Structure formats: C-alpha cells, structure tokens
C-alpha cells in the first residue's frame, strides 16, 4: 500500500515533447510507471517515445485513460495546463514547473475550489511509491520499498532524506515533494492525513524550511490527530532574515516563518527534530524506537 499512487496508476504527461518532459517520461517509463500518453497542443496525432500525443488533456483521458497527469510545461503556460487537467477531471495533477507567477496560482486555487482534483506542487519533484510508480523527477535508484512516508518542500533535500533512510535499511511507503512555492496545491497537513490513514505507513519524515506557516499548522494537526511517530528537519536556520532563499516561498518576515519557530512547534507536538541535515535518518530511528516500531520498519 501507499498513498495516492500505485503500480496500476495510469499517467499522462503534459508537455511530453519538450526537453524536460521527454527526458523524464523516459525515466518514468524505465522505473515502471504506466505512462499512457502525452499532451502537447498542436502535436496531436504524433508519437513521442512510442506513446500517443494528443492536443488536449480531455482527449488523452478519453482515448488512453489517465488517473494522474504530470506537467512539464513552461511557467507562462503552466497555470492554464493545471486548469485544463482539472477541467478534464484528472484526479491527481503533479506540476513540476518552477517559476509560475503567484497571481496565476491564486487563480488556479480559486478555480479548483469545489472540483475533485488533487494538485501536488508546483515547483516540486513529484512523488514516488518505491517499486510501484514514480511521477515526476525523483531519482528512483535511491529509494527502497518500505514503511516510512516522506514529505518535503525541497527536491534535493528529499533525496538526501530518502538516501539516509535507505542507507540505514529503512524503506519508504511514498515520498512526496510538495514544492517550494508560497501558494501550492497539497500542503503538509494533507499529506500527513493521508499517511496517518495509510495502513502501510508506520512513521513519517517531514522536511520543512523557513517561510510561511505550513509547518506550524502541520504541528497543530499532529498534536491533535497523529498517532504515528514523526521525525523532522527544518532548513534555513542560518538564512538571513528578509531574503528569499532560492524558493519563492523561503523567506522570513519579522517573527513569522523562522526556523526556530517551526522547530519549537514540531518539538512541542512530540516530533523528533534533527539538529543538522545529516541526521534526518537518525531522527527517524529515534522516533521509531520511542514508538516501539523500529523492528517493523526494518522489515
């Protein structure tokens, strides 16, 4: 089991004929993801990597079937691509694109109200269920099938966390990168809820960073609802205040969004917070030990 995606998830790729789209479609196929086709307006009727290309998401869904769509289109067209996928009724939409204007995302989120699609990202690495399905750009080679759920706002820091777990012999149920933008589809709390409900996930690693209040809200949710152990790391303790650290959402203002505040919030809800980024795996071991599930995690 896992959350949201599994071996039989059918995926279409929006922007399949672009450089990034094509490269990562190949990677997804070789990982075993069931990619059924792609969408590039104006290239309908052609093929890419032996997959059919359609002009619209709706047509792709009707002809080849899609449970999920992954978006690799340039930032200026990305908001409309997300809305097209929502309109076509795609249940899970993963937007990899970085650099979408904030006001475009604001419109997208408003548009999605009352609709039935889940959006992950934008500006995210996607998600992976080891040995089952990968949607996005995460490197499958470092993952191992298991029982730890991973959530992160950062791409490469997700890889770092997953790599540490794998090297400790701890596998993952699903790893989800929720993205570094200030306005995003799925937040920490949504993923935590899904992991709490997933019988195959026994513990969770959560990687946050400065800016916003998603980590604090997640901490409140954990305190009230979460029974599974949580380990965490927050990046950006040494970031200068008021500067945007690469990610559009990674900025502190006044006393809000600081690493210290987030760490304190997570500790107060019982999470084990790693002091430094090299000890994320150890933090998880400690959290699992406390909960008495270390042996189950190694299975």
């Amino acid at each position, binding site marked *: 089991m896992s959350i949201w995606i599994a071996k039989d998830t059918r995926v279409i790729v929006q922007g399949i004929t672009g450089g990034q789209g094509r490269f990562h479609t190949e990677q997804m196929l070789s990982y075993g993801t069931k990619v059924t086709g792609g969408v590039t307006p104006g290239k309908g009727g052609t093929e890419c990597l032996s997959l059919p290309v359609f002009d619209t998401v709706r047509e792709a869904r009707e002809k080849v079937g899609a449970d999920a769509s992954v978006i690799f289109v340039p930032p200026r067209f990305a908001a409309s691509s997300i809305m097209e996928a929502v309109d076509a009724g795609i249940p899970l939409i993963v937007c990899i694109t970085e650099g979408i*204007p904030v006001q475009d995302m*604001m419109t997208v989120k408003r548009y999605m109200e009352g609709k039935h699609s889940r959006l992950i990202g934008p500006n995210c690495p996607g998600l992976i269920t080891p040995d089952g399905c990968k949607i996005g*750009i995460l490197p499958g*080679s470092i993952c191992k099938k298991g029982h730890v759920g991973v959530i*992160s706002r950062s791409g490469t820091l997700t890889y770092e966390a997953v790599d540490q777990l794998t090297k400790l012999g701890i596998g993952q149920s699903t790893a989800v990168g929720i993205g570094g933008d*200030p306005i995003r589809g799925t937040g920490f709390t949504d993923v935590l809820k899904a992991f709490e409900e997933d019988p195959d996930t026994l513990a969770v690693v959560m990687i946050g960073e400065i800016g916003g209040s998603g980590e604090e809200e997640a901490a409140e949710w954990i305190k009230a609802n979460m029974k599974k152990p949580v380990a965490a790391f927050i990046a950006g*303790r040494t970031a200068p205040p008021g500067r945007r650290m690469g990610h559009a959402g990674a900025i502190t203002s006044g006393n809000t969004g600081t690493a210290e505040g987030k760490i304190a919030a997570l500790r107060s809800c019982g999470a084990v917070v790693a002091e*430094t980024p090299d000890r994320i795996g150890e933090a998880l071991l400690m959290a699992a030990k406390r909960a008495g599930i270390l042996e189950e995690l190694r299975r």
Partner: protein
Amino acid sequence: MNIHEYQASNLFREYGIPVPEGYLAETPEEAREASKMLGGRCVIKAQIHSGGRGKAGGVKLASDPDEAARLAEGLLGSVLVTKQTGNKGKTVRKLFVTECADIEREFYFSITMDNREECPVFIFSSDGGTEIEELAKTAPEKIGRMHIDPVFGLMDYQLRYMLDRMDIEKDIRDRITDIALRAYRLFREKDCSLVEINPLIADRNGNVTAVDAKINFDDNALFRHPDIRLLRDELEEEEREREAGRYDLNYIQLDGDIACMVNGAGLAMATMDIIKAFGGSPANFLDVGGSATKEKIEGAFRILLSDPNVKGIFVNIFGGIMKCDIIAGGIVDAAKSTSIGVPLVVRLTGTHEEEGKKILAGSGLAIIPAEDLADGARKICRLVEEARK
C-alpha cells in the same frame, strides 16, 4: 523585484492615484532646478531600495533652490544605513525632489499577497506614518484587514464596511475608496507582490495624496511586463548577486569564509546550516539548479572566487537523475580554467557516482572527496580553520 519611490510614484500617476509633483535629480544642479520648478520649498528624498530612510537622515526639507542644491550635494554619494540595509548601508545615487505636503492626517495603506489565504489582502489604518509592524504591536485594533476575492476583485462595499467605522470624514473616505480601487487594479495588472503607501495623507482641504510610494513585483511574472523590467536598477543589487543572475544562478552573499555550491534551494540552505553547526561560517547561498551545465558551474566558481573572504569551497551535489560523471567533468574543467587557490571539498551523490569520483580523483587537481554531507562539511570546516591560522 523592487523599484525606487520615484518610479512607483510615476506608476501611481499612470493609474490616477494622486501624488505630489516631483522630479528625479542625480546632481545638485538638477535638485536646484527641481526646487525652482516646485516654487522653492521642497522635500529631498534619497532613492535607495530600503525602508526607514527618514530615520536614517535620507529625507530633508529645503526652503529654496540653493538649500536644495546644498542638501543634494550632501546626500548624493553618501551611504545610508537603515535598519533594513545592514551595516554596509546603501550608496545614494538618485534623489526624488517633491513638493511639500500640507499634512492634516496620515493613513497607512497597502495591498499585498496573503499566501496563507491564497488571495490579496487590503490593509488600512487611520493611524499612519509609523511603521505598520510597530502599530500591529501597539494598537492592532487600529488596523483594518480585508481579503480580496481574486475573481471578483475589491468591491466598494467592502471598503465602506472598513472605512465607515473609522473616524474619517465622508469626503476623505470616498477619496480613499477611489485610490484603493485604482491601486488594486495596478496590483493585479502589473503582478505586484506589494503596493504600499505610508503615509497616505489628507490635507486641510480634504485632498488625499500618496506622499510615499512602494511597489514590489513578482519576479516570476516579469516575463509579461517588459515596461516593468526596464525599471530595474542593477546598481541596487549586490555585485556578485547581479553577476549570478546572468548565469541564471541563485546566489545570496553572506559574511562568512566558506563558499558553498549546491544543487537545490533546500539542500543549499541545509548546507549553510550544517557548516554553521560544525563551527564554520558560510560565505554565501548558491543554488546551481537542476541542470548544472559546465558553463553554469564555471560561472559559479568565478563568482565564489571573486569574494575575497573565501578561504575554502564546499561543492555539495546530490545528482539524483543528473549523472555524476558529467557533473564531475564540469567541476574539473571549471576548476582548471578558474585556477582555484583554496581548499576544494566535493561531495557527489547520485547516478554514476563511482565514475564521477574516479574523474575527480584522476584530474590531477587537489580535490578533496567527501563521502556524504556530514563528511564534506566536517572536512571543509577543518581545512578553513587551518587556513585561518
């Protein structure tokens, strides 16, 4: 992206928001001319990308053209240290010379993004002039906040709800409403992240004027605003940060001596954190992005090495799908062409990791390989500690 007050004031004028008459001056002579055109008495305001200019001595009152020229001479070329600039301060290169306002009342006015609510928010206080952060602490009840539905926009009834319960005359309330609707149109049409007027003032005759103007834009939306891109003042940016922009690198200058080159913003922040935790001090934040080509890595090395404080470099790349042998080749080429004279520790993980390590080892360069994040951070901290002695 930030712009200067005089540029923001021009945009306000374009959108029909009342602003004082004013002129840009880059020399004392131009300030004298501006003062003449304004009838002598005028305000001279230093144009730097920072708040708190008044308190730092960047805003002066002149009573005639001669005094305007004299004050301008003192301000131009001077360094203003405000609470937002850091100790280094910012050099004043431009002045905005405006007519004096006859201030009866001051208001705080802004429109910004509320990321948590995922929509714009209008913030207003009948008690302006001071900083809003201060007011939020001392008298939060004096601040009104109104969320704006992105589909329907700011509605006049919303403004009535907010303003009617404040102690403001009807005429002035109507003018504020008009300004708010115009400012919101500007906010949406130009992809602003902030439109702030502090203070918005009312004079004895009930005229309402924006005597300050601050606008920030969403960098991600600049592609569709060529007019706004032209307003960028490169001299306001730190030299190395400007250079990094040319290579499409994300660089932020810090004051330590260990340079970092990392792929991914989160890992780059985490790398700074671990260096600090191991007793070192990072010289910068640098994210080379997902597609670290040879050109980018070369550019990154050049920028890092141009910082005279740098005593060592830590390259931390989690390749993921990027192939480590290709990255290693890029590092070796770049290191050769930029002749690095300080210790260089490289941590490389991901696809084709072993081949990558072989390339580094066989390069003939003094590259110190690291097994993982902690090993790399420990090594660079120790080497730089030795270099400091």
